């Protein structure tokens, strides 16, 4: 006869291992992203640091709960836009790294950040019952975007962050049901 308590303990261990395996699968997406960023000649240290932080955060969030899984998916999707844009900007205009806060690069970063914020807000709306999903997704999106934006300098990173927050807030208010 099987002891139910032992069975529960062993089931929980299997559950945690399965959850960890599922959470770690995000590395399959993050590893190529990090590799692309690390191939760039400048800002490798910052990129490696961000990649490690992003990987740890994604695994932890996905391991914790479904809200985390959804947040990571949304964050990576939204953060992918500024990441790609930042990688392109580095190629097109290498002067962005030293540009001031009122430069074209910062304005572009703000705009791209706003787009990513809008994506987060839209996905958040379709997953309304998940509390805290939006904020976690913004965090993941910021880290993902930083993979590419850090080498663009403080002004661009700040612009992108601001854009992300403004974009999310605007989209949320625009799509909110009327009271």
């Amino acid at each position, binding site marked *: 006869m*099987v002891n*139910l308590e032992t*069975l*529960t303990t*062993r*089931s*929980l261990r*299997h*559950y945690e*291992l*399965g*959850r960890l*395996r*599922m959470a770690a699968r995000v590395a399959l997406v993050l590893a190529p992203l990090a590799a692309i960023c690390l191939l760039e000649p400048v800002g490798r240290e910052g990129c490696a640091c961000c990649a490690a932080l992003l990987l740890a955060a994604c695994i932890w969030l996905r391991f*914790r*709960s*479904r*809200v*985390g899984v959804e947040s990571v998916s949304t964050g990576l999707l939204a953060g992918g836009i500024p990441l790609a844009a930042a990688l392109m900007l580095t190629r097109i205009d290498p002067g962005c790294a030293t540009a001031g806060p009122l430069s074209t690069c910062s304005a572009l970063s703000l705009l791209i950040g706003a787009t990513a914020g809008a994506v987060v807000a839209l996905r958040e709306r379709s997953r309304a019952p998940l509390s805290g999903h939006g904020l976690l997704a913004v965090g993941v999106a910021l880290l993902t975007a930083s993979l590419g934006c850090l080498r663009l300098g403080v002004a661009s990173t700040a612009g992108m962050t601001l854009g992300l927050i403004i974009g999310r807030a605007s989209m949320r208010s625009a799509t909110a049901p009327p009271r």
Partner: protein
Amino acid sequence: MLRLADGDRSAISPLVEQLWPVLLSYAERGLRDAQAAEDVAQEVLFRISSRISELDRTRDPLSWAFGIATFELMSQRKRRKRRRETFLGDALPSAPEAVESGEDAVIHAELHAALADALGHLSAQDVEQLGLRDAAPAGPATPAMRKRRQRALDRLRTIWRNLYGQS
């Protein structure tokens, strides 16, 4: 199950309490062996726990769980079919005749006697060619030896037909 899939660890205890008897009875019905059923039910429970984080919320969780259970049961059945080894202990027969019925034994004895009688009509050389003596020819069979054996067999068939009227 959905709570556990969402990451609520406290849901594991009620899940095990509710799912275990169902899985056990399902395995028992599928295998008709209480000990094996318990092992399979445990394996199914651990597999469900391990994969529940990947549960698709659009599907019915119970059907999903029973899908895993059915797959595991079928695998177990296949394994048992492949590994059909039963220990017979002291009842292990020393020769195939030991498991024959009385009627089979009589038929066998009669056939042996008939064959011995037919072999008695063969020459000693032919009996040797058929490999029915201890001194079997050493080395690989040459075409000439095969031919001689074939002829000896033909002669035995003819003697059998003459004696018993059938081949």
